[in-house]
């Protein structure tokens, strides 16, 4: 007879990669996301962030655009280029405070699965946003 393992003991918690160089912001996000049941890894720059993302062990990638190493846009481009990265299962959400030209923003939105202006949402609202993502 098989029994369902309790959720808390299986690694079925959704994994989030947060590529964000602003320590205080990632701290708040980690706090809110962990409380909501996510498992969160933080990377502080674009190169390490890209390497982590390419392991394809995450469900959600939060990608800041203004990060050292490689910019978020460069990371996004590599992750979405089939010759450089096999198709990821993760949803990529752009998190930024950068003021974009609207056409540039539309371009990024097409490649990413979501776009968030950090100043406009609280960590709690970020959790709500992620819970609405498909899958």
């Amino acid at each position, binding site marked *: 007879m098989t029994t369902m393992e309790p959720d808390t003991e299986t690694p079925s918690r959704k994994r989030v990669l947060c590529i964000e160089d*602003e320590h*205080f*912001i990632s701290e*708040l996000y980690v*706090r*809110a996301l962990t409380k909501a049941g996510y498992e969160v890894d933080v990377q502080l720059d674009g190169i390490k962030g890209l390497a982590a993302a390419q392991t394809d062990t995450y469900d959600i990638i939060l990608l800041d655009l203004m990060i050292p190493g490689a910019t978020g846009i460069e990371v996004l481009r590599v992750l979405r280029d089939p010759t450089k990265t096999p198709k990821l299962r993760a949803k990529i959400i752009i998190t930024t*405070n950068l*003021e974009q*030209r*609207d*056409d540039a923003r*539309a371009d990024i939105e097409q490649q990413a699965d979501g776009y968030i*202006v*950090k*100043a*406009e949402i*609280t*960590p*709690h609202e970020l959790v709500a946003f992620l819970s609405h993502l498909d899958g």
Partner: protein
Amino acid sequence: MGYFQNFIRQFRARLFLVIFINNALILADWYIVDRVVRLTGWWALAAIIAAPLLTLGIIPWLSTRTLTQPTKFLWQAIMHIAPSTAGDVPAPKPEQLHLGRELVTNLISQLYQLASVVQGVEKTNVKAAQDLHINFVANSLPLPLLALDKEDKIIYANESAAKYLGAPATDLTGQNVYTALDMSFMSNDTLNSWLTATKGKSVTADRRWERVRIGLPGQHGGLQFDLAAHYNQDNPTGYETLLVLFDHTKAYSEDDQALGFIAMGVHELRTPLTLLRGYIEVFDEEIGPGLDPEMQRFMRQMDASARQLTALVDNIQNVAKIEDNQLTLQLHEEPWPEMIEAAVSDMRLRAGVRGITIKTDIAQDLPTAGVDHYSIYELLANLLDNAIKYSKEKDEILVSAKLNTDGLIETSVSDHGAGIDGSILPYIFDKFYRNHRNRAQIGGTGLGLYLAKTIVEAHNGNIWVTSKQGEGSTFTFTVVPYNKLEETSKASGNTNITRSAHGWIKNHSLYRN
């Protein structure tokens, strides 16, 4: 030539007749003396000499009148039209003439023609002198000057206008002013709308506009002018409308650059604001429930203030974008009640801090709207923010929406606040305009309503305000239902219609709708 030959023939015939008569008389005299009277000696000699002497006296006297008559008529004609004696001498009547009537009639008519040509030349010279005068003044004027006719066609452009517009004056004349000048105004109150209204009811009128943009090929953002217009119905010169442009490009673009600079600085507030709101949320969630009511109120006040500051940053960023012509709309099909609810629920916290309640009254059967999600949210947030600012504590704000008789979705935000003085109503949508009397008590950048108007107009909607002092204000705007959006836009862009929101209202009706 025929008249002259004729005249010579007539003249010769008359001369021949006179000489013939003369000779005949002399011969007859000689015959009478010799054969009839038979005079001899000295008597005969005296009689023969007397006859030619007699005819010499009489015949020239008689014939001269006839022979010189044509000359007299010509003299009369010349004296009649000569400037010094004009009016003293009557006009000749060549039909009374016997000799050379045709020639003289012809000569006189030529004379009169010449005279009228001279007169015409004289008049043209006077006008040319006047034109030269006007031209000199207009071309020395260091301001672009244009004159329009009844149909708003350019009939005169001075050198300065040609220089600014980069086209020779001759190319400008004949063009419709709205075609020749790519003008954009700050509001719907454009040259076109003013002229249309003025032509119906005024004989003369003057008007001045600030910050009129004129797009020129190869000039990013164009030049910015103040425009002054003078209208004079049925002006005899044909110059019905005069336009003078004052170039303020430098001053105005410095303003805009300042705004761009502020926007850049304000951007730096976003990270601290993100953090501030994050920490407030953590405190509120984790220690909020245990706090006493006063501390809880402070917490809410702190959260509301952080949100207000975030909205202010967004407004400045957006206006800077509009000025740089970079705000674009993505028109999607959106359920309208949800759009309103999203903005209202976000603003409830701010309202609640001052005990203000926001109620909604949304018609059941509203169609979906074709709007840009982000900017409509900002529009509603700005109108609600405005209503909250001007409301008294414990007031109620009502947001209502219905389908109006034109088939547009009409949304109103009403407050019961101080209301707006009638004298400032026309300006409240202007950039940087603020109610001066309230400046001390009520904060703001003067950008919120300008942004609201720009967003509504970019959606092809209208926004207006009704207000009674002491009773409150109602801001109403329209948006287009999704099924009414241009079929062509829908066909080409699927459900995703992009439209530029340049924040400047094109003058020409072609650009509207």
